[in-house]
């Protein structure tokens, strides 16, 4: 989040500021909840609810705290609503490449493989899937994920490695 010194102390009751926070964070939170619980519609509802809560409490939440406030609210709301539902992930194909140095010439574009991958990801544990997808799709580094999930970098590494191991077993020989 960019932090303009005057904005740090400002609360988020101002519409322009509120919208900029929404533009920055809504997609990230939506994806995060989606990765975590695998229900797109609910994830978007949760984002909306979280931002309404932010508005209701806008005078109490300074700009600098908005991000963690939103994540906390969204997580709690989804624990109430989304948890215990079947994880059902559906992805599109990303046209733009995120990693420039991903040399191994490997583009697995068959629909069959994609479906297999999606299903396998859906079967990962919540912790594994969230860490793995934050890294792969959101392009977050271990350190960022660790900070975000409030766990150690070592734990992030372990979750991602385990995720990869499970995926490799499930998908089998490529």
């Amino acid at each position, binding site marked *: 989040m960019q932090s303009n010194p005057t904005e740090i102390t400002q609360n988020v009751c101002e519409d322009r500021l509120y*919208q900029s926070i*929404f*533009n920055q964070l*809504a*997609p990230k939170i*939506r*994806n995060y909840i*989606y990765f975590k619980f695998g229900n*797109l519609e609910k994830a*978007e509802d949760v*984002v*909306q609810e979280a*931002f*309404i809560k932010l*508005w*209701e409490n806008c005078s109490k939440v300074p700009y600098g705290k908005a991000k963690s406030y939103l994540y906390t609210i969204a997580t709690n709301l989804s624990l109430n609503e989304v948890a215990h539902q079947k994880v059902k992930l*559906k*992805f*599109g*194909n*990303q*046209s733009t490449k*995120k*990693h*420039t*140095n*991903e*040399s*191994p010439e*490997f*583009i*697995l574009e068959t629909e069959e*493989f*994609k479906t297999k*991958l*999606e299903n396998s*990801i859906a079967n990962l544990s919540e912790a594994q899937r969230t860490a*793995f*997808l934050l*890294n*792969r*799709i959101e*392009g977050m*580094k*271990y350190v960022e994920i660790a900070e975000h999930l409030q766990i150690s970098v070592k734990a992030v*590494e372990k979750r*991602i*490695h*385990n995720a*990869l*191991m499970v*995926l*490799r077993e499930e*998908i089998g020989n*490529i």
Partner: protein
Amino acid sequence: MNLNFTQKELLNRWLNAEADESDIAAIKNDPELLEYIQISQAASHLATPEYELEKAYEKLIAKRNQPQKVYKLFTFQKVYRYAAILIALVGVYYFFQTRPSVIEVAYAQQSEIVLPDASEVLINAGSKLSYQKNNWNKKRLIHLEGEAYFKVSKGGKFTVQTSLGNVQVVGTQFNVNQRENLFEVECYQGKVDVSHGREIIRLTPGKCVKLSTDGTLVLSSIVAKAPFWTTGVSNFENESLQIVLDELKRQYNLQIDVDSTVSLDQRFTGSFKRGNLDLALKTICLPLKLTYRFIADKKVVLHAEN
């Protein structure tokens, strides 16, 4: 994961987009590692469904600007709903717990009950009595409409409420008679406090009190050891004919029509017995110079003798 330390480091560097040329070369020479990288690479080509930011923001603002109360009221309604059910249940429970015991004695009958503390009550015809059974030993309170004779066992305060006044005792025998405007208490044992409005009179054995027509309590004496009615006799001391006939109706379950020639205010002193209607009618009519005539089984017309 069976990777060794170096392999893990390579994998981590690649996943964090920190791999350099030599790392990538090393990965390409390691078939196992390459599989992991390929899966990772495939995963990073997945895209989350598109999020229409502007549309989502419009929807958010629309919902945000709805009056908040709509949402809150909805939850309150739920609370109210449960509260109403709870109150209803508590109410029903309370109703059944505290529902008074009611004893009604029909015309031409008498009834005797024993209260939870072994006090006895003899209830005269056409009377109604109610009390709280479940809290009896803490609060001895009886509502009475009509006439009853009480033998109260010792204990705390014992109160009889009527629409015309209250009677309070500790342990005694007494008779309470309240019919329309008539209010009469006779004390046979112990001490009895009779209150009417602000007036309180203490009765000792052999005394009785009666509400006079001007609304004050008048004290007088009795001779009997128990109320006449409990022995099957209804007794009257200078009572109006109206009161005498009312009692006759109750004791015999009778309908009485009175001719306009008969004054209901005239006084009667005497008694009648239960069990013989003809005799009872004669006892009342002879001294007052009245005649009676049956027009049906349980219907009598009274008129003055010419």
